[in-house]
């Protein structure tokens, strides 16, 4: 496994090989394993060890990148030469900045929270037999309920570092354990998923129990007519939908006029109970705390009381925005440490979303949301979400794995899954209640800290056959 010393040594070798004005190394190593099961059997079981040595060079305003997974001297020489050959033939980019210095990194790092440790030895040292032993009780839950289980139990240890020829050097290490389970009956299913850097925070048997209860409770689903319903979205359902909008919260997206926030920053776009920020240091977050140039990630308030306040910037997009005619109407402009590695097509985006839960005293549990609902739908998760309209942020997708009719404050039973076509803008204007913000994971968007939500007038347009 790579460590900081080996990485620093690799960088010195690259520096010795380059003729470029500047050189940068983004280096990552991973050891990951995943035990997969279906039909109550472990049917796929994998482990991988790999590294990425990604080199960027600059000649004046020309830059390019080359990547290899080998760190012998010949491979390092070759990757430098590839990057240099690509960079030399680029046109000069007047917006390409010199690589940052440690001083610039330190100067921009205002109000940065202390790092959290996300490496846990007990997670890094999990063996195949440990993972199989974690799967067995999940399968046993299925068998007790006469259900079929499918899912995963995975663990990983990853490292990531950045070094540049102007003296920037940073390093990050993390472990992650994850369990996801689907319980299948003849006419229904249930699902749960969770992850944590610390294996002791995961309870796979409990996840299996909840998924099984959902599968049993939703059997023999009835069909409801499409229409607008009050929905109670569990945190994973919220996450997978709202995640689609955060790719637009970047200066480059605004400058290129591909963001739904164009002409909308500073407006009351969402309900007053919507508060969202990006925070790589939040105790329930994971992920590297510096960006693709080594700038430290800021905590940044994106939405305050429903008003979009700010977006993220890389160094170059911040400078371009200051010089643009949009500058006076896009909120604060400063490099926020969210740039992707250069060169890239996206620019920057928030990667550690925290959605505030309800104010103290107003937090509602899912049970309380159900209790207060005259007629509505409880949604466990959303699936195959795609963007129908990029400016109105209309999304389409399906409900899945545990969708219930709620009537007069009680769950009445399972219903056939719906297709929805809903815009995130009215959806987040129509939030009637919020739960406690928790760490959640889905399949369509990045992990987030996010509450459950009760939303009125959610637009279900069609029903499927199950």
């Amino acid at each position, binding site marked *: 496994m790579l460590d900081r010393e080996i990485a620093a040594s690799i960088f010195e070798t690259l520096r010795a090989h380059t003729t470029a004005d500047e050189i940068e190394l983004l280096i990552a190593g991973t050891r990951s394993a995943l035990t997969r099961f279906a039909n109550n059997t472990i049917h796929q079981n994998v482990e991988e060890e*790999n590294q990425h040595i990604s080199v960027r060079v600059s000649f004046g305003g020309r830059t390019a990148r080359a990547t290899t997974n080998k760190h012998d001297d010949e491979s390092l020489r070759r990757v430098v030469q590839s990057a240099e050959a690509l960079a030399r033939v680029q046109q000069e980019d007047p917006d390409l900045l010199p690589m940052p210095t440690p001083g610039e990194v330190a100067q921009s790092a205002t109000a940065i929270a202390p790092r959290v440790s996300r490496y846990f030895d007990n997670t890094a040292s999990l063996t195949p037999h440990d993972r*199989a032993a974690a799967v067995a009780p999940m399968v046993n839950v299925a068998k007790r309920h006469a259900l079929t289980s499918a899912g995963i139990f995975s663990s990983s240890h990853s490292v990531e570092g950045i070094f540049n020829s102007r003296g920037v050097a940073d390093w990050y290490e993390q472990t992650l354990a994850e369990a996801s389970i689907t319980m299948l009956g003849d006419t229904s299913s249930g699902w749960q998923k969770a992850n944590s850097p610390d294996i002791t925070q995961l309870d796979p048997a409990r996840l299996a129990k909840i998924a099984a209860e959902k599968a049993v409770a939703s059997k023999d689903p009835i069909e409801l007519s499409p229409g607008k319903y009050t929905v109670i979205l569990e945190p994973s359902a919220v996450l997978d939908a709202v995640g689609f909008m955060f790719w637009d919260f970047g200066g480059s997206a605004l400058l290129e006029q591909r963001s739904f926030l164009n002409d909308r920053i500073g407006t009351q776009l969402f309900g007053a109970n919507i508060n969202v920020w990006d925070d790589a240091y939040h105790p329930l977050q994971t992920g590297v705390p510096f960006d693709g140039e080594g700038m430290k990630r800021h905590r940044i308030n994106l939405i305050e009381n429903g008003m979009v306040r700010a977006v993220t910037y890389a160094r170059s997009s911040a400078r371009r925005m200051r010089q643009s005619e949009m500058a006076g109407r896009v909120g604060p402009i400063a490099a926020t440490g969210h740039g992707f590695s250069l060169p890239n097509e996206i620019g920057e985006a928030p990667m550690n979303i925290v959605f505030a839960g309800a104010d103290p005293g107003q937090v509602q549990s899912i049970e309380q949301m159900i209790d207060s609902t005259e007629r509505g739908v409880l949604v466990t998760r959303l699936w195959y979400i795609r963007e129908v309209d990029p400016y109105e942020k209309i999304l389409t997708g399906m409900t899945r794995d545990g969708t219930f009719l709620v009537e007069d404050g009680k769950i009445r039973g399972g219903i056939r899954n719906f297709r929805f076509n809903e815009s995130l803008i009215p959806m987040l204007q129509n939030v009637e209640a919020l739960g406690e913000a928790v760490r959640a994971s889905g399949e369509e968007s990045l992990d987030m800290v996010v509450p459950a939500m009760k939303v009125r007038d959610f637009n279900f347009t069609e029903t499927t056959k199950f």
Partner: protein
Amino acid sequence: MKEIASWALETAKLRGASLAEARIVDERQRSLATKNGKIASASDAESLGVGIRVIADGAFGFAATDDLSRDGVQSCAARAVDIAKSSATVKAHELRMVPEPPHRAEWASPCAVDPFSISVEKNLELLFAIDTELRKNKGVTLAEANMHFRRYEQWFFSSEGSEIHQTVVTTGAGYAALSFEGAAIQKRSYPNSFGGQYQNRGYELIEEMKLLEHAPEIAEQAVALHSAEQCPEGTLDIVLDSAQLSLQIHESIGHPIELDRVLGMEANFAGTSFLTLDKLRTLKYGSEIVNVVADATEAHGPGLGTFAYDDEGVAAQRTPIITNGLFTGYLSSRDTAAAIGAARSGGCLRAESWNRLPIVRMTNVSILPSDKPLTLEELISATDRGILMQTNRSWSIDDKRYNFQFGCEMGWEIVGGKRGRMIKNPSYSGITTEFWNSMDAICSRDEWTLWGTPNCGKGQPQQVMGTGHGAAPARFRKIAVGTAYKGSN
């Protein structure tokens, strides 16, 4: 490479494996992209490693490493066997595989012009020329153009005696014009959306696509969409262009026929399938003119699903999937074929690279064109009222592959057999088998294109695969249209 593989196979056997396979991959990629007159991406990447799959104690294990030293490979093989033995502790039945004779072969995909031999200056010259042409239209607010090349060299060795060396070159390119005006962002792409067209060929593909020549029209259409009519809501006949039909095939035929999905092996992530085993050779999947094949052979064309042997050493095959409307075949592998009592694997086990376990994937899943001459213009002329929909913009389908909804970039009203007004935000939805049973016309070979979908995601951990889909424009009767904006505030 044979020596490296021998370290893996011998170690696995010594540790108790009844079957061992070593797949060594040396991969190189180049990505170039421009955006509004500037470079957006310029990168080269290479990756080399080995993936080792074994069966021990009646269960699978897989381990992969980038360390190709003797110690590294032997350690990886030992881990694969240990993983298999841990799998066997939660096992409902013994793993079975249908037989496949060992093969010794060398194969390379057809490539007239090595894309890596073309200078980057020439690549960029074309991308910037496209960019300039698109942005001549002042209504275009964002111009994006890209090229991507890949050389994938794989050596496969198995304890059953197979030694297969294959080299595949892939080329892809495309561009898009986005226009932001008022409260809408409209987009037009060429030759296809989400990156363009991809095939297992060389640079000759890019020359054939005549990318620059189409740029002015694409830019004009992106801007014109703002003043086009909104797609009506209702039930209408639709004609889908071949690019959109290729994605329809991918989502509503290609995925549900994956036998691992049918057998529940993807239930936690990608989902299952409505094509339960009782439906094979009994279900009327489509109308009588619907004929679909899964064909990995060279004869089908240089699609992203073309190879000589799959990633467990099974020879490429052509499998009839839908024959005159009847459901006749799945995509299978050696273990999934055994699970349904089939005699042979369909040769559909594929992995993204050395570090991923091969799983059942589409090859080239294509609809056959009409054998009677019919052009797109003739099909339009024969349509009284409907909408022609072109180039995909959004796609979504449920986890058993029944209910789907697609949005396209642009539509054209058809009235009295003639193209009428431009339609913006066209969308349609349906239930898979009802949809395919409504197909009553398909164009002929001259209108058929073997499209490439370069980024199909499946599996845990997720892996991306290129798949091919041949399609010609086709007509579908009485389809729900405008559904994506139904009930919008």
